[in-house]
């Protein structure tokens, strides 16, 4: 009677195909992890790190890359797990204590990888069937998976290196013909390319029509720009339209300010083309016009390099405020925007005033701003 692993007829269940796919996955997961960490730092900056304001479009690129590499990893991971699946059914399941540890370390790697890709795709589709807060659960699963990946790389380093030698020391690592392997691995790469084409249009505008699974359509939204939260959903419609709306600049300042919308419009304005770059991967550039935050800080007599808490009319909710570090607040293009594309802001884009700054996640571009609290 044949052993379970011998019942897999395809010769692609081999060390060399596993090695190539493993390296590709290692690269894509590493890029995904680093760009995800970058996004985490942008939203939760540690005390030792000031997130930079430049280059202006950097977050757009890193978060787009995060979602694209994650999506491209789906066929890669499925193919890799298929190639090594015979090991899963090998008997006996455990041959030694060391082997048991190695197999146990696969659970966080495999489970974590599938969890990350699954919850990531669900987040891009704005679907949250899980009973935990997505960013936190996703973030810690990334650390779990990377720990498992490092342990796995260590365990498989010698066998991977051997499988990629022209003539491996262990001849059983190479079973498929070069043509079969090329066709298989090329097919996996093409499948990854296809899923990227089908999804990346929210980030890479020229792919817009091809990307049938993109969350957004370029140009669709008020003033030609997509939104993530409406004024109605945020419960701010009446207060945002209230003629008595004021912008308050206070805190660590010499002269607190209390400005009407007319006062703000009378101040020197600046125009900047900046992207809204969502953590879900889509991004879109627009022409914004408003008062530089640094001018408001100077008018109020804030110290150079002061940090600012930007508060919204939206009091409830997770993103009712955001912070500008000294560098971000001092950047000329960090605006309290009053106009978008030459028109007053649509209420869903933050009328009467919103924050827009370079190299920031969209969730930190606070809308319906009512207060700048200087620290």
């Amino acid at each position, binding site marked *: 009677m044949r052993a379970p692993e011998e019942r897999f007829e395809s010769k692609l269940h081999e060390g060399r195909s596993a090695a190539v796919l493993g390296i590709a996955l290692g690269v894509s997961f590493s890029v995904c992890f680093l760009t995800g960490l970058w996004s985490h730092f942008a939203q939760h900056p540690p005390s030792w790190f000031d997130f930079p304001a430049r280059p202006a479009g950097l977050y757009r690129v890193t978060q787009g890359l995060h979602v694209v590499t994650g999506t491209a990893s789906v066929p890669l991971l499925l193919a890799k797990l298929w190639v090594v699946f015979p090991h899963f059914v090998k008997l006996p399941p455990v041959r030694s204590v060391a082997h048991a540890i190695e197999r146990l370390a696969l659970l966080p790697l495999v489970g974590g990888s599938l969890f990350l890709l699954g919850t990531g795709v669900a987040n891009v589709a704005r679907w949250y069937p899980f009973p935990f807060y997505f960013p936190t659960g996703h973030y810690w699963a990334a650390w779990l998976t990377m720990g498992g990946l*490092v342990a796995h790389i260590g365990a498989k380093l*010698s*066998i991977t290196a051997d499988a990629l030698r022209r003539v491996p020391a262990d001849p059983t690592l190479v079973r498929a013909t070069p043509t079969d392997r090329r066709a298989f691995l090329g097919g996996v790469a093409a499948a990854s390319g296809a899923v990227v084409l089908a999804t990346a249009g929210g980030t890479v505008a020229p792919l817009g029509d091809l990307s049938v699974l993109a969350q*957004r359509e370029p140009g669709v939204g008020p003033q030609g720009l997509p939104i993530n939260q409406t004024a109605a959903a945020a419960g701010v419609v009446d207060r945002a339209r209230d003629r008595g709306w004021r912008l308050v600049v206070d805190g660590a300042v010499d002269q607190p300010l209390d400005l009407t919308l007319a006062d703000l419009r009378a101040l020197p304005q600046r125009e900047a083309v900046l992207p809204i770059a969502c953590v879900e991967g889509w991004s879109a550039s627009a022409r914004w016009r408003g008062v530089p935050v640094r001018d408001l800080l100077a008018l109020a007599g804030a110290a150079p390099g002061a940090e600012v808490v930007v508060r919204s009319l939206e009091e409830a909710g997770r993103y009712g405020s955001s912070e500008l570090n000294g560098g971000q607040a001092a950047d000329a293009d960090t605006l309290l925007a009053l106009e978008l594309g030459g028109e007053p802001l649509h209420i869903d884009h933050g009328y009467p005033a919103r924050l827009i700054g370079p190299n920031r996640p969209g969730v930190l571009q606070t809308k319906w701003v009512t207060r700048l609290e200087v620290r």
Partner: protein
Amino acid sequence: MRRPSIVLGGSRASWTGLAVGAPVMVFAIVGVLGADEVEIGSWGRWVVSAALFHDLLLVPVVLLVGAGLHRIVPDSAWVPLRWVLLTVGSLVLIGLPFVRRYGYQEANPTALSRQYGTGLARFCAVVGVVGIGWWLMRRRRTTPDGNDLTEASAIGPSPRTKP
């Protein structure tokens, strides 16, 4: 020649990987334990369930479907068909929450605004057409008895060649 070990303990790299990787995994668990909005039990269940879903359901289904199709399609069609199945399968897995519009909110029509079912069907149809084109190209390269000419010229007959 020394045969490389495939189990932990066979090399210094194995233990180095575990020495670095294990603390990172512990860091993740401790992080979840200290997180406000993630409960370790439900989070862990999702991690484990993802692995079980894949290993006990998805892969067996894929293997059964693959084995069944392999018996009925011609050899020259198998490689393109396998690519089509992987691509379409990945697209369907990724596209399902879009097609079902689970996350759609009427208040924000700018999100999930496309006709995802139609778009996905068209995209998969294009993948299918590319697969058929690939198959036709492979058929032109194979001899009547099923040998792949490229393969034959490089290293001899394909192992799937029928006698």
